[in-house]
Every structure is written in C-alpha cells, then in structure tokens.
C-alpha cells in the first residue's frame, strides 16, 4: 500500500533521511520508531506530499505522491504532530471544509461529520470556534478530519500526544478496526509501549537510516536480543544505553 523507494531528504548539507526503502502492505499497522531527530517526521511528511524528497519516490497504492499527487492523496489521511487548524472556524465547519478538499459534499458529508463528532465526543462542541478547543480536542478534530473521506491508509505522526487515556484507548481501537477491515496505518511514536502493543511491524530509524525492520520478534532475532523488551532493544540499537547517571544530571 505504502512503498518508499530510496527516499532521501537533504536540508542543505544535512542528511535528514538517507536512502530509505520500505514497504507497508495493506492491512498492517506499521510503527516508525527512533530517537528525536532520527528523520521520522520528515519521512512521514514526504509520504503525505508536504515535503519534496531530494531523491527517491513515495508510492501510495501504486501512485507516485509527487508525480501524480491527486489520486495518491485521495487514498491518504494525514494526522500531523502539531494540531494547527483554522481558529476561526467551528469544528463542524472545519470538517465540512476538509471534506470539500476531497471533493465530497451534500447530506452524506453532514451525516459523516455527525458520526465522527459523536465517536470523538465532540458533538456538544461542534458549533464552537476551534480557538476555544483544548490541545486534545484539536487533536481529536484533526483525527476526525483525516477519517472524513474514508481513506485507504492513514499516516500519523505521534498520535497519542495530548490525548487523555480515554481518547488514547479510543484511537487504538479505531486504528485496530481500521486495519482489520483492510486499511493501512503508518505511525511514528516515541511511546514504545504503544508500539509494542499496537504495531504489527516496526522500523527503527537512526540518523535518517532504517537500522532494523520487521515484527518485534524479527528484530529481536536479527539483533540477538533474546527476550529483551522493546525498550531495551530500542536503546541498544539507537545508542541510548549510554545515558548518563541520573544523579549526575539532576545534581544534588
């Protein structure tokens, strides 16, 4: 469903993403892990068509996101890590606007909006301006907007940031059901428990390269990690084991 071929992104002379190739099949929830600055967000934004790759290409359902963007983007729902939306629109107006961007209109959109707002417990806020929403509510609104056109795949950057435990659980259930029905989810996360509990497959990024990929068991086997937890595995692969003693950092 999502195929990255030799994807590279340079910012000046800095290599943010270094020749990544990856295939995320249909019906899979794929996790993209890595320390800060590893290139996860840059990769996701290239998949969403927001950033242009310096080299390589991104295929969504066979269509190149940059050479043939419209059909590729019709299949995609993108959820960014920072929930910036139009402050002066109401929640319902924002969702109708997004539906319009995907060419949808009429009563069917109205019903879909009501359905999504209900699921995310935003119905009583639908006529409030977004500027009055909390961070978590904005995040829920953006997740609703990514689902409004019934996409085939969802690309999501740090989905749990700002969500309360109840909404986080709801989101996990939604993604799992979405995948069970043949949809594809590619998400980046720092929360290793979330990745371990939710993802069918993972890729670990370090300095813009994939240093490990496959199921968690595959990755353990590849790196002879025995029964190590994902956290231990992650730290081993990303060099985080050299964390300085806490007492030294905190002083006193």
């Amino acid at each position, binding site marked *: 469903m999502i195929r990255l071929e030799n994807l590279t992104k340079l910012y000046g002379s800095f290599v943010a993403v270094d020749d990544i190739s990856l295939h995320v099949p249909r019906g899979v929830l794929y996790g993209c892990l890595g320390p800060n600055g590893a290139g996860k967000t840059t990769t996701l934004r290239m998949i969403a068509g927001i950033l242009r790759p310096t080299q390589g290409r991104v295929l969504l359902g066979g269509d190149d996101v940059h050479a043939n963007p419209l*059909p590729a983007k019709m299949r995609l729902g993108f959820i960014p890590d920072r929930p910036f939306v139009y402050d002066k629109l109401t929640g319902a107006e924002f969702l109708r606007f997004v539906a319009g961007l995907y060419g949808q209109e009429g009563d069917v959109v109205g019903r879909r909006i009501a359905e999504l707002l209900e699921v995310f417990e935003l119905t009583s806020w639908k006529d409030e301006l977004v500027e009055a929403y909390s961070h978590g509510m904005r995040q829920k609104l953006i997740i609703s907007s990514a689902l409004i056109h019934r996409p085939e795949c969802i690309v999501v950057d740090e989905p749990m940031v700002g969500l309360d435990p109840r909404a986080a659980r709801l989101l996990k259930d939604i993604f799992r059901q979405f995948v069970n029905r043949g949809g594809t989810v590619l998400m980046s996360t720092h929360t290793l428990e979330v990745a371990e509990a939710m993802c069918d497959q993972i890729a670990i990024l370090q300095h813009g390269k994939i240093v490990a990929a496959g199921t968690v068991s595959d990755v353990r086997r590849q790196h002879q990690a025995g029964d190590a937890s994902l956290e231990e595995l992650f730290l081993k692969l990303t060099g985080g084991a050299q964390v300085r003693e806490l007492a030294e950092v905190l002083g006193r």
Partner: protein
Amino acid sequence: MKQPSLAHVLQPKWRTALQRLREERARGGSGKLIILIIVGGAFWAGVFGVLYLILRNLRKVEELGPLIPGKILGLILLSFISILVLSNVITALSSFFLAKDLDLLVSAPVDWLRLYLAKLGETLLHSSWMVALMAVPILAAYGVVYKGGVLFALYATLAIVPMLGSAVTLVLVNIFPARRTRDLLSIIALGAAGGVILLFRVIRPEQLARPEGFRNLLDFLILLRGPTSPFLPSEWASQAVMGYLQHTIDPLPLMLLWSTAAAFVTLGAVLHRALYPQGFTKAQEGAERFIRGGLWRWTVGSLLGWLPVAKREFVLKDIKLFFRDTTQWSQLILLAVLVVVYLFNIQALPLHRGEPVGFFYVNLVSFLNLGLAGFVLASIAARFIFPAVSLEGRQMWLLRSSPLDLRALLWSKYWVGTVPLLALGVLLTGMTNALLEVSTFMMLMSLATMAALTLAIAAMALAFGTLYPQFETENAAQIPTSFGGLVFMMATIALLAGVIVSLWQAVYAYVRAVYEGRPVVIDAWMFLWFGVAAALCTAATIVPLRLALKKMETFEF
C-alpha cells in the same frame, strides 16, 4: 538576583534576524538582494528627484517660496505619523500580548522594566523601519536644495527619531488591557479612523488648493505661516528641520520632541507596571463564541453553487475567517474613511472655472486620478490580499496533504480578493469622474483602465505575498509592513507609472483634439498606446500568478 541585560533579553530576536540573512545568502539570495538594492535605489532616486525638482522650483518663487516647502514637509511627516500610530499600535499589541516568546519571558524572573524596554524596542524597530527608510530621500532632497551640509543629516536624525518614538502609543495599549485584544483592536481602528478624519478637517487641505478663495495674498500667507497642527510631533519635527535649513534655529521644537518622547516612554512604563500583568492574563483568554455559520452557507454558498466543491469551500472558508477575525475586518473601517476623504478631496478641487482651461484641468485630474486610485487600491491590496498565502502557513500541512490542486487554492485566493477590490476600484473611479463631470471617452477609458489595473494589482499582491511569505507571524495586520510588502508597493508604483505614461500619449491626443475643436478620431497612434497599457496590465496579471504557483509548489513545511 542579577537581572539579564536588555541585549540578552532581545538575543533571540537579533540572532533569528542574523540567521535568516545567512540562510537567504546560502540559498543564493545575493542575486535577489542586488536586484532589490537596484529597485530600491531607483525608487529612492525617483522620490529624491521629484521632490528635488519641486523644491528647487519653489525656492525661486518670491514670498510663498520659503513657506510652502515647510508645509509640504509638515504634510509628509503628518502622513508618516498617521502610519506610525497605526502600525505601532498593531505591532505593540502583538509584541506585548500575543508574541510566542511571552510565555517564556513572563514566567522567567525578568523584571518588568526590562520586559517593557525590550518589547518597546522591538515594537519601535518593527513598526518604524519602513517609514525611516522612506524619510531618507525626502530629507536628502531638503538637505541638498537648502544646502544643509553634512551636519544636516545628523540634525535631521535628531529631529526625526523622537517623532518615531513618540508615536509609540503604548499608552493606548496599556489603558485598555482589561479588554480582550480583539475588541481592543476594533476600538483602536475606530479611534484611528476618527483621528484621520479629524486631522484632515484640521488642516483643511482644500483651502490650500484654492488660493484664489482668499480675500488677498495676505490671508493666504497668514494661513501658510501658522502651524497646521501645532500639537502634533510631526509639526515640531517639520519646524525643527526647516528652522535648521533656513538658519533660524529655534531649540523649542527639538525640546518639545524629545521631552514628549521621553514622557510617553515614562508614562508607558508606569502604566505597564500597574496594568500589564492583568492585561496579559486577559489576552490569554480564548474568545469562546457559539457560532452557527449557516448564514454564509445560505447566501454566498448558494451563489457559488456552480463552482467545484473544493473551490467553493475554500472561498466560503476565506470569507468566514475574514469576518470573524477582528484584526482583519476592522481595517475596513479605515478603508471607508480613506475613500470618504479621497472623494471629499476630489470634490474640493477648484475646477470648472471657465472653458476651455477647465476642460483641460478636469481631464488632467481625471487622468491623474487613475494613478492615485491605483495607489489607494494597491494599499488596500497590500492589507487584504498580500497576507492571503502567509495566513495559510500553519494549515499548509492540510492543504498539501489533501488532493487540492494548488491552482484551485491560488484561484480562490485571487478572486476572493479581486472581486471586492474591483467593485471598489470601479466605484471610486466612476464616482470621482462623475464628480468631475468628465466626458464619456474619459469615463470609459478610466473604467477600463481601472478594471485592468485592479486585476494586475491583485495578482501582484498575491504573488509578492507568496514570494515573501510570513508564515510565522503573530498578527495578520503586521504582514503588509514586511519587506515583501515594501517590494510589492514599489513594483505596483512602477506598474502604475508605466500604464499612466503609456495612456498619456493617447489621452493627450484626445484632449488636444477637443481643445483645438477638431473631431476626435481614435487612430492607430491611440490604439498603439492603449495596446501598450493593456499589454502591461496583462503581463502584470499573468506573470506574477505563474511565479506564485511555481513558488507555492516549492513550499516545504
């Protein structure tokens, strides 16, 4: 506890500015910089040249000669101070109440005075740099004509700086901190609008334009000798500069300027200390408003039913955002005042005083009016169309990840801005021409030119706003005063000059034929110049839009 120095508090600002310069240079921006220096230099030379010629000729006129340059300088500085008041208030609002660094500064143990002075300096710099740049060729022309010498530059700086400073109406911002910022802005806009009307009534420009209305020359001279607005810093600055140039140095205006500036800064500090914490708290409160936005959907939405859904939703969204954002719509009040003042001034012109001289002047004024109306439209486009793309910055993730065609985005932005501008341009030209009682030929020519100019000005505003985007801005009203806004205004003035010069050839042939009593024949010569003007407008519409589309495709977030 040792307090950080002012320079330290301001460090993120100047470091950011330096880094931007470095990035621009790394991107190969030096070629662009050279072009800008050339265009800017030509603009400066143009302003200097025109003013130099006017002043040199005026010096030769007896009696009036020494008085009118002072009046002109007074009027220029008055317009500067109006711009300064407005832009200072808008900038002060964002830097004191809405800026992103405030959370950090207010939560840190930085004392109130440092915060106040840091933000004051930032406000001053942001809101006054453009006016300061404009003042250079003007003061240079005065200095050269009156042989002010090298020391004049120093003296003029001494006279102008406190004028810029005293325009900081932080006092106003601090008086109303308890109100929500958006309500505050509309109050300020209304206040400024009222102020502009008042100023125009106070200086009575129509009196100056009609000297024959005075009983005798003495009355006119008395009017010219008296200060036009004795309580405004612009008048003091004008007196200080002219006094130096005419070797009648009076220390009073300089003292008034500096003491007033110091008093404003001190008063601002006192109010800041007493009221800022409360005002800052209030500014954080979100405006919770329950909205049922059905009205726009029923009216505009139904009218636009023929458009594809993406374009229709985009237009509807832009209209809703505009009318729900006080910082945007409150500028319409100023616009209305501007139009009223403009029409009032046209009506007050001393024309229709006997044929055939009256006929010539009427046509000349009607023709020059095209340039003036074009300038007014350019200022409006700078306020409303120029920021259009920048305002999408934070939401660009959505637009770029959706299957929205960028051409549709540009199309929507262009027509949402152009339709009202076109209506205003045609209305303004039609009404002024009706007031001037011009011939059908001039009326049709003016309306067609205005329509073509509006299409071009709107395209240029959108394109320059895309080429010089301000995605990180904290207040939409600040976007037009950016560097890109200045470049847009200079480019528009060049376009207006090109169109006017081309059309003049055709209009002159027409006026001469009527003046000499010959029948008016629209010949190849006229067609040629109409064609040149039309080609200029078409190129100024299509080329910028294409460039904007190309630039938009390279945006990365």
